[in-house]
Structure formats: C-alpha cells, structure tokens
C-alpha cells in the first residue's frame, strides 16, 4: 500500500524526469568530448596504423623494389604483387594490390619492408562505394604516399629512435 502511494506521488511530481534531467544538466555544463568530425579531429599517435601508402624517394623514384617481403609476412594474405625487370634493369612491381577487407592493420608489412616503401599512414577515414573498390592498387597507393609524405616522413623520424 505504502509502495504504491510513493510510486503515485513520484509520477505525479515527475521525479524520474528530474532525475534524468539532472544527468543532462551535469553534462550540459561539463567539458565536452564530442568533436565536429570531419572539421575537427582527435590527435593521433605517430604510430597510428591507418590506410597504407607507398612512398617515393625525394627524386620521385618509387621506393618499392618488389622484394615481396611484405606479401610474405602479411598474416591476412592481403597483399598481392607481380614483378618484372623494368627497362632500366631495376626490379619493380607491375601490380601491388592490398585488399583492405582482408587487412587487419597489423603493420607487419611496414616492419618487413627493407626500403620503407609501404607504410601505414594516420589516414583512417576512407570508404568504398562499390564492390571491388576495397582492393587498392599501386597507383592509388603511390598517390596516397605523395599526399601524406611530409607527415609520414616526420612520423618515421620521431619514431626512429625506438625502432
């Protein structure tokens, strides 16, 4: 009898509503976590493992020498490489595909690369619109490398003493 009375009184005075509004009120004035993505971004570690890229040397020559060590080390079998002798006699890839659905972003490929060609950038907000687009090709990877080169280079510089 007594319980029912309390319950009636509580609902009559919107007790639970105020309880909830108290939480709202507290967070209303508290420091905010939310950021306005994509205008605002959270800070990322230089070791962040996002989308892959292929780097070039400052003279514009691609770094990758088609040694296929990244392909061999990849635990998800995400990388596929074909290679050939380029006209100037150097060893180059004719195909460098990474299947981003298979990839587990472990970064082993970067660890394995003897010439720092394949790297994982801080870039992580990418999307696909069609089936098949998840396989990212050599040219796109090189473009990503060009786009983020500065950041990639400074990140590797800061981390070099720990490697």
């Amino acid at each position: 009898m007594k319980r029912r009375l309390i319950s009636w009184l509580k609902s009559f005075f919107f007790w639970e509503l105020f309880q909830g509004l108290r939480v709202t009120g507290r967070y209303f004035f508290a420091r905010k976590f939310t950021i306005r993505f994509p205008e605002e971004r959270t800070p990322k570690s230089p070791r962040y493992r996002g989308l892959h890229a292929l780097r070039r040397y400052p003279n514009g020559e691609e770094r990758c020498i088609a040694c296929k060590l990244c392909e061999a080390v990849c635990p998800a079998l995400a990388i596929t490489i074909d290679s050939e002798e380029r006209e100037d006699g150097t060893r180059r890839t004719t195909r460098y595909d990474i299947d981003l659905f298979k990839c587990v972003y472990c970064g082993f490929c970067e660890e394995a690369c003897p010439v720092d060609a394949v790297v994982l950038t801080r870039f992580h907000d990418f999307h696909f619109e069609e089936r098949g687009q998840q396989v990212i090709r050599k040219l796109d990877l090189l473009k990503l490398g060009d786009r983020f080169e500065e950041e990639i280079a400074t990140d590797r510089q800061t981390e070099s003493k720990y490697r």
Partner: protein
Amino acid sequence: MTDDIITIEIDGRTLQARKGQTVIQVADEAGIHIPRFCYHKKLSVAANCRMCLVEMEKAPKPVAACATPVMAGMKIKTRSEQAREAQKGVMEFLLINHPLDCPICDQGGECELQDLALGYGKDVSRFTEAKRVVFDEDIGPLVSTDMTRCIHCTRCVRFGEEIAGLRELGATGRGENMRIGTYVKKAMASELSGNVIDVCPVGALNNKPYRFSARTWELSQHAVISPHDCVGSNFYLHTLRGKVQRAVPRENEAINETWLADRDRFSCHGIYSEQRIAQPQLKERGKWRKVSWDEAIEVTVERLQSVIASRGSETIGALISPSATLEEHYLFQCLLRGIGSSNIDHRLQQCDFSHDETMPVAPWLGMDLNAVENLQAVLIVGGNPRKDQPLLGHRLRKAALRGAAIMYVNHRAYDLNHLAEQYLAATCDDLVIQLAAIAKALMQKTNRAVPDALQGLLEQVEVDEQQKTIAENLHKADRALVLIGSQASLSPLYSYIVALSHCIASLASVSFGTIHIGANATGACLAGALPHRKVAGTADEQPGLSAHKMLQSARRAYLLFNVEPELEAWDTATAHRAMHEAEAIIAISNFASPTMREYADILLPLASFAETDGTYINAEGRWQSFTAAAKIQDDAQPGWKILRLLADRLNVSDLAFNSAAAISKVLREQCRNVVLNNTVANIKLPQHDFSAHNRRLQRIADIPIYSTDAVVRRSLPLQQTIDGMEADKASIHPQTAAEYKLETSEYVSVTQNGNTIEFSLQLNEAIPEGCIWIGLGVPGTEALGPAFGDIEVSAS
C-alpha cells in the same frame, strides 16, 4: 675390398668410409652437414672457399673437409669451438665484399650464402671500408650476371671445364681484383649452360628469362619429365598462381644426374606465346570465329563424318607429334582406327619406310644411360647427341674422357666437346657406302656372314684405312655401341642405314641402339601411333599410309595433333601443299602460326606439356608418368580429354577413360610382354643404284637443337642463343661457295621444287663440299622441298 673400408669418427659417431673418400663425402652420406661453397659432388675439389673447415684431432689447425681424405681412426669435430670459430671467421671474410641486396636478388630464399650467413654470420659488420663493385658482362640470353655478388668459389669455372667441356667462364686477377667472366666476350655456347645457375651458390649467375618475376618461397614445385628428347630428364616446374615461372633439375642419378639441358630448362618460356590458341575456333568463309567446345566438337565430328561418307575413311590422314604423351598416342590411334583409317604416323621427318615391317617394336638405346659412360667405343651414325639429346651427349663425353673411341659418321662435322673422329659423307649414297665399307672391313676381320640383302652392296665397295680403323676400334672393345642417331631418319636411304648399322653391330658383337626425334618416339611405337602396327607392335592387317606417303598422295582431311607439318615434315613443300588442298584440317594444337591459320579449318586448343597428365617412355624404355604442373591456359583441354570426347561422339567404343593414369594402366597391361630389342631380321631394302654420281648441288639437313618442336620454336630465350640464331642460316663450304660465286654474298637465293627462298648465308668448313645445309623445322622453310636432294642456289 674389405681392406678399403676404414672407420672414422665424426662428431662422436663412428662411421664406415671407403679409402679415397673425403671427410665431407662421408659426412654427407651420414647426414652430417658441413657448411661449404666451393665443394660440389659432381665437380673436382678446388678447396678455395675454406667454409668447410673442421677440427681434426691431433691437427694443429682446422682442416678443409672437402679436401681431406679419410684416414683410419681419424676423429673429426664439425661443431667444436675451434671449428665454429674458423667457420665464422671465413664467413666474415666472405661477407666483406658481398652486397646487401638480398631483397632484389632472385637467389634470395634459396641462397647458400644467405642460409649459412644466418648460422655463421655476425649481425653487424666490422668492415667500414668501401665494398668492391664488379661490372657485369652480358653472357647471353639465358644466364644473368651480377658479378658483385660472386664469392669466387669457381664452381662455374669448373663446370665449364669439366662438364660442359668448354672454357666459357674463367677467373682473372687475384685477391680483391679477382673477376669471373667469359674469356672471350661471347654468349655461352654450351647446350648445358643453364646449369651454372644451379651450381652458383649465390646470386651471381641466375636465370635470365625468369629474372625478377617471382620469389622462391611463393613458387609451388611440380615434378615433370622432359618433353623434348628421348633422355626423359626429370625436372621441376615452378609455378606462381598456376603459371609456370621456371624449370629446375630434379636429381636422378640414372637419367640426368643433377643436370638439365637448356632446352628443357628454358622451353617453358614458350608456352605462353602469343600464338597460343585460347579457345576453340572455326573458320567460316575465311574468317575465324570463336566457339564453345560443344560446337567445335560437333562441327569436327560432322566434317569427319561427311568426308568418310563421301570419300571413305582412308582419305583421312592423321599426324601426331612424337613428343605427345603415351596416352595421347594411344587414344589418337584408337580413334583413327575406330573410324576406319590406319593413316596414322608420328615420324614426320622420315621419308624411307621400306623396312617398316621388319623394324623392331620400338626404338631403344640398347642399354641403360648409365652404361653409356663405361663404353670403350661408340659409332654414331647420323646424329650429334651433344645437341640432339644433350644429356646423352654428356654421358658420351664422360666415356670419351675415360678413353673411349667415339666415332661419328654424319653429313656434316659438328662442334664437339670431346675427342672424337668425325667421318663426313656428302651425299646419302656416300654415307651408306661408308657404312658398307665398315661392315666389309669387319666381315673380313671376323669371317662372319652378312645378310643376303647386303651382300651385293658389300661387294661393290672398297675398304680404306679410315674404315678399317673404325672396324678395328669396334672389334677390339669389350663394351661398344653402334648408335643410330636421331638425325639418321632424315636420310632417303634410312633403311640401308638401319640394315648396315645392325650388320656392323652384329659383326663386331657389340650393342646396337636406335634413338629417334622427340620425347616419346618409343612410347608412340608401343602405343601404336604407326600406320602398320597397333599397340605393343601387333601388325595391322590393313596397314595405312606413312607420314610421307599421306602427304604425297594428298588426303581429303587431316587430323593434326600438335604438329606443324609445313615445318616438321621431310618434304615441307609437299606437306604445305597437302594442307592447303585438303577439304578439312582439324588441328588439335598448343599454337597456331599464321600459316596454320591459313590452311586449318578447326582449331582445338590443347593443354601444353606443363598442363596435362601423361607418361613418356625414354630411350632406355623407362616409363615415367607425371601430373599437370600448371593451370590450363584459357579454354584449352588436355589431349586425352579431347580425344576421348571425339571418340565418344564418333561412336568409337572402349575409350571411356576417366584419367590419364587409367589409360597408361591399360597400356602397361597390353605391353607386358614386350621386350625391347633392336634386332632387325630379314630386312627388305629398296632398289638403289649406288654407282650413279650426282654432280649437282645437294641439300643436306638436320633438325637444329632449338627447332625440334612447337614449344621450343616459340621460346624466345632459346631462339636468341647462338644455336637458335644460326638455325635459319644456310651453310656452305667456302670452296663450294666459290664454285657458285657466293663467297662474298651475305644472302643466297635457294630454289627447290620451283620455289625460291632467300636465306642469309654462312661459310662453314663443317659442311662437306658440294652441299648446302639448311635446317629442318626452322620457320621460313615452309616452301622448300625435301630435306635431302637437288637444290639450286644463286647470289642475291
């Protein structure tokens, strides 16, 4: 013998050893691994790398295991402190000048230096000076060089001297300045040159066509058998995602030892040629249309049936490659006989078939390959095993080095890599007369009778000193062989060659062997791919036409199984004409050349040797089966499946096999009682007047090493070798050239059968006077006539 066995101790294990063995040999037999670079079990001991240093008790310093003969009671430690210290020291020195380019080196993953560096190398180099750089030489289309990587083990140099028999690579300079290079800057001309790739422990010498196309660890390895010659070399094809990348030898002491001929190693680069047929195709009003297999088979059956209905089944001719598998030969002949035609043959290059009935069941070497190296005398008639069957040539060379007398009777002199006597015969008549004289010399020596058929001929000939020497050599040897080489069958007097060679062998009481062109001629004969014989040599009551006859008296329809008659037939012009005039040409083939596209009506894509299961029987009579190594290209099908399907649609019964293995099992059963034997009894010889002298210029021919079959002809690296590039030149003796006013011309117009073709001309003293040599099977010779015969030349 027991005195020769001694006991030694390695790493605490007591081992039995034979006197004269080295420590490393005993250790290898016992499975104890001693690191090494310069030691190779098939080469002499150089002991220059010092990697194999081991500790020997009571010796003040470590000793080289590869150069130390065993002694009774010797105690060796391969892993003691002192041994490890010495090995590590050697490794550090080796790595001083070795570049750190493993990631781009094709040897990476299968490199002896890499492997040993893992166990003996230091992780940080103490060497801070500049490393040595050596500039590379171009040593031909087969082997790539990165000489900075060389560790001077001299295995390649020793291979050149001891195995190839050519000093192609040599070391110049000493110490830091030592360089390995070709003495004369020219491509390696050996037919075994590819073996330096395996012999080289590092990546200094590598496979050029394969360069940078894959890494060793991602390849899958498939055991196959050589599809090019009757040695039947064992090798592996390495594939990446189903595509053949390269070939490496598979050790088999009884056949190819550890070696592989260049033809077997590099022919795989021909299978993905642009001329490969991707899909079944039909020609309709001169245009090719791609169709489904169902439609192609349906049309094929219709065409064959309409020819049979209107002209009879004997107007169908069928030619099959001698390098097709046993299963394919069997189904092919069953199919043809099933529809009533016995016009089946695999001997395209032959023109004299008069001894067919008396010929042995199948060609046979007459002995094991191993036995060849212990022979004391060999007479080779019509052939140059060095180029025709390179690993048989290697065995012959071994015999020669052991002092055997090797003698050749040929239409031209060949570049040999061992001591031998070469006797030349300018014309086919002349070759037969020489053989007859040898037989006569032997007859006089042994007082034995000769077959009646030969008596008349033997009476006509006179014996000179040369022939007496040959007879003497054969007669006095305990172990000798008379071998009919694979080029002999090109002669229009082949039956005489067979009869006389057999006669010589039996007069001298020595072994007699015959080898043929192609990987499976022995199998083809056993499977019945012959016009006059069925499976296991049983006679066909209604013999058909031989290859040459069915091209001469043109048939209405031809079924071609992986052959290009316009290149491979004895008389190419006649073959070419027969192809053009026929109503229907059905080509089951790997490739279609533009010429084939002109005359063929139906193209059925065939799986290449790497993509099919099958069996080859080699010259020793050894059955070797293999399974498909690579994924089939496009829409091709294995030969046995195509033939089975055709048989099914043509209502030929009993061929419903479900695997290649099932076919060879049936064949084995049928051939159970066949014993290979070369005895030729009651030979029938055609009439021939040996006294007539033909004074006109003669064409002579053989099949050059890289023109033997369709795949080899399409392997670019092989065609770019010296042998490949010389194949399409006409060769003539300088004296004869002068006679025909050709000595200054670079090109020559050659006329045969009224057709004129231009060739580039080479003056060559190896060709007898009065002849011009033009190869058979060489693209560009389609319009030319017979391999042997009258020919006209003029400068152009």
